[in-house]
């Protein structure tokens, strides 16, 4: 069974869907739950349309149904999850507090999470103050929890055990409630729930596939948590054919998180150092980030080895390996916050490499305006694109709201090398590191980003070579030693990969894996989770032996094709594929098991467990490090070795997923009427970021976005290509025939979509694939918008169109600052008369006139925008 929700897999990952189709041919059921009937829905055995943003109600319904019908996989749940663990008496559920968990502070919009802890457990450090997505690392991983006195009840009867809390939390998420909130008829819901149950257990597994259809919500992280809880209750994690599959959207977006260019992370998911009172010392960082129990006890080895990779011989025990000179974060420095700093004149320069925020970032009209407040902008790409030429022919410039001559931003548009014109590796959605050989030279002055960074670094390092200023210590002492080749002095990508893999400092020997890392400065490693990718001095990411896929004994694992982090493991937590005694749950689903004769774990994959640790090993109460993980605790990255149905720490907005409406929703929160939206979510409360007031009759239509197979993200990689452009030539909106009839919109004709931020035009695709939903007794219409178009193309046969992201406000999930793409809008027939973001100009120009009371505008003000901007009068929907 393949359950796809929050993903249009056939549409966005067609070749990944090859394997879903193969599974279907072999009898697997395919389920698709999505607001938008896409090519994925067309191939599914079961499709259920859902109101955008209501997924947690659906997931809660599944959890409720699985528990109510006693359908959970008991041996798995009791032994491998924290179902039996007893929670602090202080904890209060949303059922007790009408939509809030205990610890909510309405002043700051944040939770004090101390009451969510296990009974007898403690968080080593309280990270109380609100710092978007920068909660202490220990919080995220569960590291640092004192586990010794945690109590549990394996009968699952204790009223405060996790299982009972879960049961109580979801008691009202009944099939009837799912129908009311999501618009999914209860029969359809039950059919899906029973299909999931029937295809899980010892003999069967089912997988969950999601993508940004889940992440991009003000409750995005909680949606994925909800999916994970269902999969854990059904015993579908760590087993072949199971899992929670994140379908990542870009060639190396997984790699960009592993070796992050993300503000709060260092390579290998180590946290960026955070500012706090006093000095931030290495010891202090390790104490906060490390853990007495579980794998994170090795934390110090990873950060010290990273410092050795960065500062080489200049990193010594005496200077804490250079750690004290690393920059410290404080608060949220994410993309949106940074662009708002630019908007307010606080940012001089911006590098944009292979990105197109003028189209691809939410509230793109504001993004384009913010670019005009920079002193300089460096854009690197294959061809000219909206972000580089925002000053020339953006909507705002063409609309006369901004004059080109007034924009003082200096822009460098640098020609970049394409994927076949350089060597290096991508990390795909299943954590496979795959090397690309170089096939040809880039044209003219086009260069790789590797070349750009290397030669920029050489110039800057030369400038600081003679500096004596303490702040320049990291630049003076940076280990920057990459060989160059060819007429353009291209740095050697394999040299960089060797540094990422790690080496023994004294000999330069390549490390075989992260278990060789030390905290005393004898090893260097640029990204600990990638250690082993250059084992034995061989580029393991360049391995190209697929093996025999037809071999029934795990041939399909292809362990010698490329290299997976960590340690070439293909399925994480795969110890859970065996029962507590170490035997496969079933012959049919065997994967990794305990070999009593050899005295070790073995199987088709690299076991995700210490190989010699016996299944019957019991950790002593005072054990530390990996000794604290028992032989039947598969989830060894967690301090308690268990998968969490309930998150005592790690999430800022609640220990269990809870249904809240999107910020912009046309309906009330039926489950918690007093708390419409996620109370801990992020809102950038600015005049130039107005929200559609919730339940405002001017915005009765629910909108969500989707991807088309024929295009890629913000378009520069597809809209300029005639072969792709002709396949989907114009921006369109999918709309149901009823709504179309009400608004006088004709199939193929023009229509406009309106929010407080913008009004964009699109061709109408009137189709029965879009279905109005019955939500709590009223009809709610949804529209679906692809988001690939922008104002520029480099090709005569390329295509342009209005930008969907112009419509969407800045708001976000509190845990990771990702945007919310379920929003409200209105639609009308016809074309727009002004630029798409003319309404925004109004908000910006009247920055002082409008109060912070976003969105609640008087009719006169709306009228000033001109009739064309004014949403049509509405009948009762």
């Amino acid at each position: 069974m393949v359950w796809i929700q929050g993903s249009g897999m056939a549409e966005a990952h067609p070749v990944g869907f090859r394997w879903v189709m193969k599974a279907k041919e072999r009898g697997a059921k395919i389920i698709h739950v999505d607001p938008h009937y896409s090519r994925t829905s067309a191939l599914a055995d079961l499709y259920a349309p859902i109101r955008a943003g209501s997924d947690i109600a659906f997931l809660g319904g599944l959890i409720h149904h699985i528990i109510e019908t006693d359908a959970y996989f008991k041996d798995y749940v009791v032994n491998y999850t924290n179902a039996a663990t007893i929670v602090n008496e202080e904890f209060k559920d949303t059922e007790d507090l009408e939509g809030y968990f205990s610890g909510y502070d309405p002043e700051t919009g944040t939770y004090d999470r101390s009451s969510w802890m296990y009974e007898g457990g403690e968080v080593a450090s309280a990270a109380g103050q609100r710092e978007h997505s920068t909660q202490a690392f220990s919080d995220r991983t569960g590291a640092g929890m004192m586990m010794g006195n945690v109590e549990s009840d394996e009968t699952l009867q204790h009223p405060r055990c996790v299982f009972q809390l879960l049961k109580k939390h979801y008691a009202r998420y009944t099939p009837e409630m799912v129908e009311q909130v999501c618009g999914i008829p209860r029969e359809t819901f039950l059919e899906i729930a029973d299909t999931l149950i029937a295809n899980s257990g010892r003999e069967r597994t089912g997988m969950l596939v999601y993508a940004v259809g889940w992440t991009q919500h003000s409750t995005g992280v909680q949606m994925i948590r909800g999916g994970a809880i269902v999969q854990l209750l059904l015993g579908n994690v760590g087993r072949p054919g199971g899992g929670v599959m994140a379908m990542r959207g870009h060639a190396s977006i997984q790699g960009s998180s592993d070796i992050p260019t993300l503000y709060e992370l260092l390579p290998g998911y180590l946290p960026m150092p955070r500012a706090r009172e006093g000095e931030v010392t290495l010891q202090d960082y390790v104490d906060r980030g490390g853990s007495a129990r579980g794998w994170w006890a090795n934390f110090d080895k990873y950060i010290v080895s990273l410092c050795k990779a960065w500062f080489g011989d200049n990193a010594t025990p005496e200077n804490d390996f250079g750690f004290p000179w690393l920059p410290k974060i404080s608060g949220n420095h994410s993309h949106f916050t940074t662009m708002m700093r630019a908007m307010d004149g606080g940012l001089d320069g911006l590098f944009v490499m292979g990105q197109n925020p003028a189209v691809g970032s939410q509230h793109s009209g504001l993004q384009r305006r913010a670019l005009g407040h920079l002193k300089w902008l460096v854009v690197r790409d294959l061809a000219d694109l909206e972000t580089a030429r925002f000053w020339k022919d953006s909507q705002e410039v063409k609309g006369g709201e901004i004059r080109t001559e007034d924009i003082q931003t200096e822009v460098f548009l640098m020609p970049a090398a394409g994927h076949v014109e350089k060597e290096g590796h991508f990390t795909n959605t299943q954590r496979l590191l795959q090397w690309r050989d170089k096939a040809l030279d880039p044209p003219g002055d086009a260069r790789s980003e590797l070349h750009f960074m290397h030669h920029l670094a050489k110039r800057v390092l030369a400038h600081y070579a003679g500096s004596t200023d303490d702040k320049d210590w990291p630049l003076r002492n940076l280990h920057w030693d990459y060989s160059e080749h060819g007429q353009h002095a291209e740095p050697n990508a394999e040299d960089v990969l060797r540094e990422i893999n790690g080496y023994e400092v004294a000999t330069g020997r390549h490390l075989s894996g992260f278990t060789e890392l030390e905290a005393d400065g004898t090893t260097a490693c640029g990204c600990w989770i990638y250690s082993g990718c250059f084992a034995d001095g061989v580029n393991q990411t360049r391995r190209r032996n697929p093996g025999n896929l037809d071999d029934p004994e795990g041939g399909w694992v292809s362990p010698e094709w490329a290299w997976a982090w960590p340690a070439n493991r293909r399925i994480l937590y795969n110890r859970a594929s065996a029962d507590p005694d170490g035997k496969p749950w079933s012959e049919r689903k065997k994967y990794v098991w305990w070999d009593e004769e050899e005295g070790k774990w073995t199987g088709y994959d690299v076991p995700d467990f210490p190989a010699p640790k016996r299944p019957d090993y019991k950790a002593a109460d005072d054990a530390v490090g990996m000794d604290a993980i028992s032989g039947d605790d598969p989830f060894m990255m967690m301090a308690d070795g268990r998968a969490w149905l309930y998150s005592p720490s790690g999430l800022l907005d609640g220990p269990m997923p809870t249904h809240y409406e999107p910020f912009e929703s046309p309906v009330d929160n039926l489950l918690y009427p007093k708390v419409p939206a996620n109370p801990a979510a992020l809102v950038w409360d600015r005049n130039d970021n107005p929200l559609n007031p919730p339940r405002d009759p001017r915005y009765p239509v629910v909108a969500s976005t989707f991807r088309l197979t024929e295009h890629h993200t913000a378009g520069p990689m597809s809209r300029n290509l005639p072969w792709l452009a002709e396949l989907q030539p114009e921006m369109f909106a999918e709309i149901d025939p009823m709504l179309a009839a009400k608004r006088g919109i004709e199939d193929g004709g023009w229509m406009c979509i309106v929010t407080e931020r913008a009004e964009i035009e699109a061709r109408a695709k009137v189709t029965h694939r879009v279905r109005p939903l019955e939500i709590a007794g009223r009809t709610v219409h949804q529209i679906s918008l692809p988001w690939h178009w922008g104002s520029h193309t480099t090709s005569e046969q390329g295509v342009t169109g209005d930008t969907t992201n112009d419509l969407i406000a800045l708001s976000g999930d509190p845990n990771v600052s990702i945007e919310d793409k379920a929003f409200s809008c209105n639609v009308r027939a016809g074309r727009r008369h002004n630029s798409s973001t003319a309404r925004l100009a109004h908000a910006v120009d009247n920055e002082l006139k409008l109060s912070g009371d976003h969105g609640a505008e008087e009719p006169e003000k709306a009228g000033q925008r001109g009739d064309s901007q004014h949403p049509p009068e509405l009948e009762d929907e």
Partner: protein
Amino acid sequence: MSARSPLGEIAVRKPGAQRMGFFTDTTVCIGCKACEVACKQWNDLPADGSEFRKGGSYDHTGTLSAATWRHVRFVEALAPSPALQREAEAALARGIGGNVPNIPAAGGMPSVEALGGAGGGVAEHEMVDLVGIAETEAQPQMDRWLFMSDVCKHCTNAGCLDACPTGALVRTEFETVILQPDVCNGCGYCIPSCPFGVIDRDPYDGRAAKCTLCYDRLEDGLEPACAKACPTDSIQFGPYDELVETAKGRVVALHEKGIETAYLYGAGDAPEQQIAGNLGAFFLLTEPPERFGLPAQADSPIQENAPVATATGLAAAALAVAGTVASMLIAHRRARR
């Protein structure tokens, strides 16, 4: 290395060669259009132009053409609905729908596309009034969204080949039908002779063009570009006889799964029901062929009426002379410029 085929056609013969073909299984097609692009990439075909088409679902290339040799059709099939049924019948009575001969009786699922005429891009006045239907009917439900990758059928009885007066169209040693651009004079007789509307003239040089079943790749033992790219193996390529066996097995398997409407189009028929003497590129369908713009019956015109065809052939031959002379004159004039 050329000779007559058993049919007396011009044919390339090579020892050991056998009939090769395409089996396109619409039940696993995901409508991604990889075949369209892979074909253009390999054959260096230009885009047809970026035109938004109404009523064609996600189809914006519309039809097979001189520059589109693989084309994916999209059919949005609605669940049975009395109002829609009435509308469909009315549409038929008005003669809308091109070669759509019949709408399935109650229980069938008339498709938006079939109602609006085969192929995308139908004129606006011919469009079925979806909005009107929506207003009269509570909520007609989307039932299935069907995808089908269309291509030259490489017919056993190839109308194009039979009509071609210059020998530009020949049968290869793989028993596929290819058009030799260096022989074609652009007379266009092949175009109406194809019962499937596959062949089209290149608007720039006037010559006809169509799928070659990647003759150049086959010569080097490579799989055709579309079949190779197809992510779900909806397009399969192989020795014809083996493909037919595979396809028959697939139909049986689908019937066992309860998909009883599955059948083969263009292969495995009894002699009197064969379409163009069987198709080198045949299809597995679950809906009447007209849903996908395919005729229920088809053959080479020459098979239908040999004497007329002969006369046509003779006339064509005469015109071919004229055409060749004309093209030589044009070329001569160009060279002088």
